[in-house]
C-alpha cells in the first residue's frame, strides 16, 4: 500500500461515524484507526486476517461480511453495533462456549479471557439455548514451561499464525475437518516441538482464552486486577475517539 505513489484516501461510515481509509484497507483496519471497535476473536493485531470466528460480521452495503477481511469501499455505509448484529455475534460466542468446555470460575484466564469479555460486551446474560457438546480432549502438560488445555480452544488459530509468521516456527496447525477440526501441535506433543515460553505464539496476548498456559505464572495478577476488570473489551480502541 505504502510507497512512492500517492495513496488514494476515501471515507465511509460505520454506524453513522465517518471513517477514513486508504485503498486496500479492510473495514476493521480503518475502524481501529478511527477508534470504532468492531468485536472480533480470531483477528489480532500484527497477525494475518483469517475471517473464521465471524464475530466481526458487519453489514456493508446491505450484505453481511467479515469486517476483518472485507476491503473498505468509498462511501459505503457499514452497520456495526446494531441489535441485530449484536444478536448474531452473541449466537456465535455462545456457539464457541458450547463447543468447548469453558468453566470461568476454574479457569486461570478468567478476567484476561477475550471470550469471557466478549460475552460481557455482547450482553450474554441469559441462560443459553444451545446444547453443550462437552468434548473430552487430552491435556498436554509435556512441556516444562507450557501446558495446553484444548478443551478451552476456540479454534481462532492466532497461535498458528503467530508461530508461523512472527516466530518463524510452525509449532501449531489445524487438523481434522468440521466439528473435529482443531488446533494441534507439530509433533507427538508440545515437548516434541521447538516451542518456548518466550515465543510470541505462547504470549498471553495471542491465546484469547485459557488454552495455552504458561506454567507457574497463572495467578501472578490476582482476579479483580486483570485486563477486563478495568474496562470492556475494545475500550482501548474506543478511547482513541475521545
Amino acid at each position, binding site marked *: 500500500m505504502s510507497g512512492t505513489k500517492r495513496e488514494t484516501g476515501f471515507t465511509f461510515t460505520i454506524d453513522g461515524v465517518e471513517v477514513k481509509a486508504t485503498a486496500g484497507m479492510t473495514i476493521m483496519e480503518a475502524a481501529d484507526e478511527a477508534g470504532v471497535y468492531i468485536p472480533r476473536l480470531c483477528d489480532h493485531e500484527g497477525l494475518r486476517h483469517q*475471517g473464521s470466528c465471524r464475530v466481526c460480521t458487519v453489514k456493508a452495503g446491505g450484505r453481511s461480511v467479515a469486517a476483518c477481511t472485507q476491503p473498505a469501499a468509498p462511501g459505503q455505509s457499514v452497520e456495526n453495533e446494531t441489535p441485530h448484529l449484536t444478536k448474531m455475534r452473541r449466537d456465535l460466542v455462545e456457539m464457541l462456549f458450547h463447543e468447548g468446555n469453558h468453566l470461568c470460575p476454574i479457569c486461570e484466564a478468567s478476567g484476561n479471557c477475550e471470550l469471557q469479555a466478549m460475552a460481557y460486551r455482547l450482553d450474554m446474560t441469559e441462560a443459553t439455548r444451545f446444547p453443550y457438546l462437552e468434548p473430552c480432549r487430552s491435556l498436554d502438560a509435556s512441556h516444562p514451561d507450557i501446558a495446553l488445555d484444548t478443551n478451552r480452544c476456540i479454534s481462532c488459530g492466532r497461535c498458528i499464525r503467530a508461530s508461523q509468521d512472527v516466530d518463524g516456527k510452525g509449532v501449531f496447525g489445524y487438523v481434522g475437518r468440521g466439528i473435529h477440526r482443531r488446533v494441534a501441535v507439530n509433533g507427538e506433543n508440545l515437548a516434541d516441538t521447538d516451542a518456548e515460553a518466550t515465543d510470541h505464539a505462547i504470549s498471553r496476548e495471542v491465546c484469547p482464552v485459557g488454552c495455552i498456559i504458561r506454567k507457574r505464572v497463572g495467578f501472578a495478577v490476582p482476579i479483580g486486577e486483570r485486563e477486563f476488570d478495568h474496562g470492556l473489551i475494545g475500550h482501548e480502541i474506543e478511547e482513541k475517539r475521545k
Partner: protein
Amino acid sequence: MDNGYTAANGKRGPSCDVSPVPDGEIEDICSTYGNDKHRMLDILREVQDRYRCIAPATMDRIAAATDLTRIEVEGVASFYSFLSLTPKGRVTIRLCDDIVDRYAGVADVVSVFEEVLGVSLGETTADGAFSLEYTPCIGMCDQAPAAMVNDVVLTKLTPESARQAAEALKAGQTPEMIVSNRFDELSPRERVLAMVDNNTRHAGEVLLGPVPEEAGLTNALKMTPAQIFTTIEDSGLRGCGGAGFTTGRKWRFAASERAEKHFVICNADEGEPGTFKDRVLLTERPHLLIEGMTIAARAAGAREGILYLRGEYAYMRAYLEQVLEERRRRNLLGEAILGQKNFSFDIRIQMGAGAYVCGEEGALISSCEGLPGEPKTRPPFPVNRGYLGYPTVVNNVETFCHAARILDRGAAWFNAMGMEGSHGTKLFSVCGDCLNPGIYELPYGHTVRELLAMVGGLEAAAVQIGGPSGVMIGRDSFHRRLTFDDLATGGAIIVFSGERNILEIVDYYMSFFVHESCGYCTPCRVGNVFLQKAIGKFRSGHANPEDIEYLKDLSATIIETSRCGLGMTSPNPILSTLLNFPLVYSATSRPSKDGIRDTFDIQSAIDSARKIAKRRSYIFDKDFTQ
C-alpha cells in the same frame, strides 16, 4: 465429538505404523511429484493406496521432502475422508449411505458384508484384509444401493449380489474381478460402462444428442478472445454447478486480469447428494468437455488446466487419462494446438479424496494447491487471484460442454432455448421414488409436474430440488418451474413418495452437512451440529413448539454469518420443510408438561456422578441402598 479421555501429555491416538516403510520409498513418491508441496494431495493419495495409512513417521518424511512441517502435512491428511491416519484394509468397502440408498435397502447389504467378511461397519479386520464403512453420496443414486470397493464401483446391490461379491473378495479375488472376470481385457471405456450404467433417459439438443467433433474449437480458433466472450455472453449461458454466474463474464474478468499465467479448472467434484449428471457427461462427452476447457483457455489466455475429479469417480480416471492422451496425439492439446503457434494448452487430472466442500470454487482451488479443502477469503475472487495466486476460470463440467456447443452453433441457437434468464438446456439427475431414474436433458422452464410425468413419479409427495442445499417442495408447488428465477438447481431432483419420513430425510441431510463442513468458520462448524441435534428432538418426540422458532432463529444466524455457500445453504433442508411441510413439525412437538425441557433426563444427568460416588442417589433412586 471427542469422547473418552485419552492419555495425558497429549499423545494423539494409537500409532498407525503398520510396518516401517523402507528407506527411500516415501521419498520416491514425493520426487515423482517434484517434491512439490502443491501436489500434496497426489502424494498422500499414493501413500494411502500403497501403505493403507498415513503414519506419523511417514508424515515426517513427506514433510522433509516437500519442505513443510509435519503439522501441515497432517492438516491435509486429516481433512480428506479417503485418507486415513490409522490403517485401512487392503480392500476398503465404502457403502453409499445416502438417503436414496437407505430407502433402496443398503442396510441389508451392509449386514451381508459384515457377516461374510466378519467385520463391523466402521472397522478393519484384524488381519488387515478388509475395512467396511459408510460414505456420503457417491453419485450413483439412480442405481442404488451402490458401493466403492477400493476404486471399483458396484451398483444395484442386493443382499444376494453383495453376498457373491463378499465371498469372492474373501476368496482372494480382486474387486475388478467382481465386475468382470475378463476385466483385464476391457478397454478403459468398457471398464467404466461395465461398472456403471449411464441411464440417459432423455437426450436434448445440446449435450446428449448428436455432437460433431471439435466444431466449437475449430470456430473458436478463428475468433478473437473478445469475440468468444461476446458469443458466450450473448448465449445467456450461466454456470451449471448451482450458483448460476454468467459464464462469459467470468471468462472476460479472468482474461482482463494482467498476470504472468492464467489457469482453467474444471470442477468435476459433483458431491451434492442426488447429483450424477457430470458422471454421465464425463463418460459420454469427455471430448466435448475438454474441447470446452480448451476454448476457455484460448479465450482467457491459459496454458495450463486442471480437471478436478472427485475421489468417488476414480473408476473413470484411466478413461479420462486416455482421452487426454488421445487429444495430445491429435494435437488438440499440447503445443501449438491445431497448428496455431501462439496457442498451447494442456490439462492434468487432480483427484479429490472425499470432501464435498471441495465443490466450492475456493475450496477446490485450495485442494488443487495441496491444501485442506477450505474455501478462500473473497475478495480476491478466483478470476482475479485463484490457483497459486493467478487468475483462474473455474467452471462446472456441464458449463464447459455447453460453451463448446455454443461456439459450434452460435449464441442465438442456444439463447432461443429455455426461458428469459435461463437459456439453453439443463441436465437433471433424477432419482428416488420414480419409475425411471436417470438423466434428463431438458430446456429450462419445465414445471416439476411435467418432469415428474416424464420420470414416472407423479405419485410423489415431496421433491427435493437441487439436493440438500436446495429446497424440498410438496404437491402444492409442483406447478413451479425449473429455472434460475424459480427453482434453481445444479441438477439434482430427488423424488420421495408419501411413505417416506420427512424428518428422517432432513436428519440425514443435516448429518451430511455436519460431516462435510470444513470447520473453518464457527457458524457452519458448530451451528449445524446444533441444528441436527434439534431435529433429533423432533424425531424422538421431545420437541416443544418453541423449538420451531429455535430452528428458524439458529438457521438465520448460520446463513447470515457463514463464510461460504455450504453454511449459507446448509439450513435449507430445515427451512424449506418448515415452510412446505409445517404439519410435520407441529405434529411432532408439544408443550412441555411442567416447564422442564423434555430432553432433560435426570437419570442420565446423574449417572456419571453415581459412578464417581459409587453409590445410588437418595433422592432419585427409589431403591436407594448404601
